[in-house]
């Protein structure tokens, strides 16, 4: 047979760093996108076999099922402490945590702040969807003022329920934090930017520059009571104004200097 094989170019494949397991995430939830971006970066950096992940408690409790790397399952909020233990005795490994807003900004606020303050050489992915997804949509520390949740049925009231915590801004103030950025997963452009940040956050760890965190604004269509596209619109229109996207801290020399760029 001399027939030339049909020319095919793969345009979409499962990254090696993702397992071939259907996720438990709801339709339209952006956890799947975040997982895929992290896995693509792990593949591109060639670090699947030298990376250890730490799952948290919340919707991402089962993250260990989906990443094809060594994984630990931490107690609620304690992933940065567990990652500290892992990294300190395995300095040559890349260690990352994957945490939601209830986990990182509420019950684990002390652990994340002190891991950052110590400049732990870990990479943190912080999925902020302004609600407790796994337990059914309660008010999170990042819920917006006026946001209706099952535990703020009349809308979050600042006077009695406090105001949203902007963790990236808070953590960026700490000298130990080397890299802190906020990105969003609500459209293709933002997703591409998020992937670049994920890569940088791993590179910060590889280069021993200190603590790195990428906050990712995410959707929770189920608990927000919205269709998936509507939920993406709510990130753009309601969350981004409350949680401005941008770089809060980037170590010098991480990015190549661009010609003509203003200092």
């Amino acid at each position, binding site marked *: 047979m001399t027939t030339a094989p049909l020319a095919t170019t793969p345009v979409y494949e499962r990254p090696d760093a993702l397992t071939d397991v259907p996720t438990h995430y709801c339709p339209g939830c952006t956890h799947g996108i975040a997982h895929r971006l992290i896995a693509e970066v792990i593949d591109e950096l060639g670090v*699947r076999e030298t990376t250890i992940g730490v799952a948290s408690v919340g919707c991402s409790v089962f993250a260990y099922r989906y990443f094809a790397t060594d*994984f630990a*399952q931490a*107690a609620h909020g304690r992933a940065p402490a*567990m990652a500290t*233990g*892992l990294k*300190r005795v395995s300095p040559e490994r890349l260690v990352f945590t994957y945490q939601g807003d209830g986990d990182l900004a509420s019950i684990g606020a002390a*652990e994340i702040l*002190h891991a950052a303050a110590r400049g732990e050489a870990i990479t943190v992915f912080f999925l902020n969807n302004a609600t407790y997804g796994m337990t059914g949509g309660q008010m999170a520390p990042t819920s917006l003022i006026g946001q209706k949740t099952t535990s703020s049925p009349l809308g979050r009231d600042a006077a009695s329920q406090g105001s949203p915590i902007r963790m990236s801004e808070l953590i960026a103030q700490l000298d130990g934090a080397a890299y802190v950025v906020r990105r969003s997963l609500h459209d293709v452009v933002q997703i591409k930017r998020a992937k670049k940040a994920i890569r940088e956050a791993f590179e910060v760890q590889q280069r021993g520059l200190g603590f790195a965190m990428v906050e990712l604004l995410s959707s929770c269509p189920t608990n927000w009571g919205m269709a998936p596209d509507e939920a993406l619109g709510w990130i753009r229109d309601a969350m981004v104004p409350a949680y401005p996207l941008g770089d809060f801290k980037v170590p010098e020399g991480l990015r190549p200097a661009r010609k003509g760029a203003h200092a």
Partner: protein
Amino acid sequence: MAVELLKGNVAFAEAAVRAGCEAYFGYPITPQTEALEHMAKRMPELGRVFVQAESEVAAINMVYGAAAAGARVMTSSSSPGVSLMMEGISYIAGSEVPAVVVDVMRGGPGLGNIAPAQCDYLQMVKGGGHGDYRSIVLAPSTVQELIDHTVLAFDLAEAWRTIVVVLADGSLGQMMEGAELPPMRPPRPPSERAAWALTGAIGRPTNLVSSIHLEPSEEEAFNQRLQAKYAAIEAAEVRVEEHLTGDARIAVVAFGTAARLAKTAIAAARDDGLAVGVLRPITLDPFPTAALRALAERVDGLLVVEMNAGQMLQDVQRVVAERVPVRFFGRTGGVMPMPEEIGAAIRELAHEVGAADDAAPWQEVPA
């Protein structure tokens, strides 16, 4: 190695260093802080890991992380700090990673005080954290034993993939006495970490360290496996000391510092003609059930002495099952039971059960 004058807290910290401990995570709390301070100096100078955590909650979760990586790791604390560690201890038990926790107990409940007590018995021996787990609990009564138990704790933790608790008290932590440190054992190189550990999946399937079993039947199967392991530990690891129990008609059951005080008390009672001995559980879990039951078969009465309101007493009563009268003498709140008080309780029991026939006449102990 030679006998040196050593403070308990420093002695167990240095013993851990010499047992090849690779990482220590802790938080300052009296009366164990000297251990943290010793580690702060020693671990970095040996190129090992020391982190002063932001809380005991964080410290035990750092221990969990380092243990998950297969490193030899420990923490130490005192009663209120150990209460904060209960969450992490449950997760460690539920993940079957080895870890060592030293509890230098103090008076409670609540903030209590910083004086020696044994009021964490129930918390450490019966669980404390959530779920059907057990720990191996060692109860040293001298600084030498505090050293030896710390070394043993690492070996037991790794052999059984379990938490091992060294249950000391403020008296042992703060006292200085002659003791001999073990020779220096170098830490295990990272390349020799256990096959289950999170070391990076280089050329092997991925490893997972987790305590989650969402499917109830799987969780039950896991629990059954844990219980089988605890039964095997019970069969293999009981340690107990019997002191002058051969001819005893009365026996004191006590652990740690209370047992030490009891030994002084029975020496005086024996001088007065009372046949008294001491049974000292060295492992509180597994509890020396067989030895205690055998002793209960041949004595006329048992006196449990503790620095609490009667916590191990429940285990003694369970094991003895009314074979002989079991009485209790305890002091709480950080007050140490004096040998004279214990002696008075021994005499009272001896008279009650008719074991004082040959003894010197009863004398009131001056207050």
